[in-house]
């Protein structure tokens, strides 16, 4: 089996990997000490074409060749070459009978242990400073770890498909994630860098966008609105698109906004976005005042979602957190993750009954659709398409820079999605062709 076997979890990784793709362990952590062992030196002295220690080819095996270390569990796989193992005596030579322990006590503990067959098998010889080739050293069982442990686990697994993974070679070549990343990156990057503006297509007006717009438009001037800011810079590339038109609409509605966030960088992200939205509706000198008029408080709350119930009811805790115990007219949840919207709907909304408008990542929309259908969400704006649809509903005409940015976004989005679609079709086609070939070969 090609690749490097993780010494930690046993996952087989690509040859050029430095870290395990599953558990992240360093795949070369034991190379340096291993290089000093006799095994590693022997392995280095082999020619590149010489079989590795685990490649027991029967007739080709010579007495000088390091013996098969995995004879007990060898089911046809080659041993991982990245982890030099200590040798055991050649298979064709019967192992010398292990001498009995010396009945006379000896002060040399190492020597005594060496003469006790099987006692140290589970231990690492390097740690005890014992020479594995010392005379009288009994043949030891191989250390069970890495791929061997994975093999054993799968052999005893009640799920037959787990064992099938090992006994059946893959019918088609492995997927190279790097190429997929490269294709998608080129599909998105080239239109952006070379200013292509096609195809832009038509914005889909998803259910919930118009209702979200109507909820904000219905606010009386000076209405108190609370925004639960549940995204930060990590997802701002998408969520800023969603938040900008909603915040701009709140400015137009002359609402008074209290921003709360459970993320440390949430308030800073909110401050930056509010300034941007203010600059869209007011010339630069006045934008700062517009932003100041909009945001009454911008708070970071510690304690995670547990603190959210404190934002409800006419309590001192709420008054101390929000500076006022007055009821909010509308709650806006801006979240990258559906779980944050759910947390608000579960911990806050049932207690205070404030209508909730959610602005979320596209990935969160399918999960939140059920809350929109049940009426728990008053409005739902998700993803770049929801954001652009909401922007179209605003009365303010587009600025040139906005129009260009929207066209860039749509073009990059469409090319990226086309590339992904092409990759999926190609993958299906290849799978179909290789499967047909495999069936013919049976």
């Amino acid at each position, binding site marked *: 089996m090609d690749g490097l076997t993780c010494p930690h979890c046993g996952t087989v990784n690509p040859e050029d990997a430095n870290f395990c793709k599953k558990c992240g362990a360093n795949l070369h952590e034991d190379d340096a000490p291993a290089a000093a062992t006799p095994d590693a030196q022997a392995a280095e002295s082999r020619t590149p074409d010489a079989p590795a220690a685990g490649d027991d080819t029967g007739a080709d095996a010579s007495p000088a060749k390091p013996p098969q270390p995995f004879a007990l569990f060898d089911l046809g796989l080659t041993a991982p070459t990245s982890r030099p193992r200590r040798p055991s005596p050649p298979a064709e030579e019967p192992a010398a009978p292990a001498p009995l322990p010396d009945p006379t006590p000896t002060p040399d503990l190492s020597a005594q242990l060496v003469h006790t067959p099987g006692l140290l098998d589970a231990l690492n010889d390097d740690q005890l400073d014992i020479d594995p080739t010392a005379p009288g050293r009994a043949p030891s069982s191989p250390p069970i770890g890495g791929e061997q442990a994975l093999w054993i686990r799968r052999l005893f697994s009640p799920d037959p498909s787990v064992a099938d993974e090992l006994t059946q070679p893959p019918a088609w070549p492995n997927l190279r994630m790097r190429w997929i990343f490269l294709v998608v990156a080129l599909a998105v990057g080239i239109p952006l860098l070379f200013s292509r503006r096609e195809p832009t297509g038509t914005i889909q007006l998803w259910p919930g966008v118009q209702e979200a717009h109507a909820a904000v438009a219905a606010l009386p001037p000076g209405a108190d609105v609370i925004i639960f800011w549940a995204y930060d810079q990590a997802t*701002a*590339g998408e969520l800023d698109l969603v938040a900008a038109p909603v915040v701009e609409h709140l400015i137009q509605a002359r609402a008074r906004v209290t921003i709360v966030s459970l993320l440390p960088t949430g308030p800073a992200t909110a401050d930056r976005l509010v300034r941007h939205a203010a600059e869209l509706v007011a010339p630069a000198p006045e934008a700062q005042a517009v932003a100041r008029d909009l945001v009454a408080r911008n708070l970071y709350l*510690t304690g995670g979602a547990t603190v959210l119930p404190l934002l409800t009811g006419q309590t001192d805790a709420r008054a101390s957190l929000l500076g006022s115990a007055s009821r909010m007219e509308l709650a806006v949840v801006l979240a990258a993750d559906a779980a944050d919207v759910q947390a608000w709907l579960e911990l806050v909304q049932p207690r205070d009954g404030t209508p909730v408008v959610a602005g979320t990542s596209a990935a969160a929309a399918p999960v939140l659709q059920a809350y929109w259908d049940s009426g728990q969400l008053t409005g739902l704006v998700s993803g770049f398409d929801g954001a652009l649809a909401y922007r179209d509903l605003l009365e303010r005409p587009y600025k040139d820079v906005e129009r260009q940015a929207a066209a860039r976004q749509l073009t990059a989005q469409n090319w990226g999605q086309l590339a992904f679609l092409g990759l999926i079709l190609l993958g299906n086609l290849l799978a179909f062709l290789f499967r047909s070939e495999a069936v013919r070969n049976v």
Partner: protein
Amino acid sequence: MFDALGQSGAAGQIGLWVGLLTSLALASMLLRDNTLARLAQHILVGAGVGYAVVLAVRSVLWPQLVGPLLRAPDASPWRWLLAGLLAVLLLAGTVQIVTGGHAPSWLLLAGAVPVAMVVGASIAVAMLGAVEGTLAPQFLRAAASGLVTGAPLTVVTGVLTLLITSGAIIHLRVNPDRDLHGAPGWLRGFVGAWAAIGRRGLWLAAGVIFARLVASRISLLAARFEYLAAALQQTGVWTWANRLWEALF
């Protein structure tokens, strides 16, 4: 995204370069796993944690706990309790780090009390919220709009919802060959067919979620490209590259 590059002055320039170099280092992971990419990840995580600690001290611990205690020690006794729990947690954590996880058992136990209080309260709040905000409303809505209203489209939707939901549960929890071993063949076939409907429902849902996830991540990728293009221009790297290109070719 919008005016992330709008900071002026030395801090803005430093942030610009750090952002540009960190982004490029992380992007190099596409070529292969390498030290620069790992370093960038460590910088991001470390900076994030450091920022959170400073923010927690500045905006929570000092103004809400330490400051009031120093100003009026007798005013609020419960603050002393909180300060004590905090001190125990800090001590337990510090000893754990210094001794490499070999803290005395009494200290670990003392440190576990505040953690248990936080975890217990979180679970209790989350469970009540899940019932109050998701389970009950969703169940009531399904019950109200399913077969009760009688509108043809609603009836079809309700039946399909019932069929797919129960099929998905059967698929996830029942293996006809194993769990119905010895049962009549027609029963195993019936359950298997029902589970197959549920399985296809799960695939359909996964497909919808995957499609929206792809759209979301492409939005993020496009924003990163926009950032890189703007950063390359503002740092002057783009101009230098153009000059180099003209000089060479």
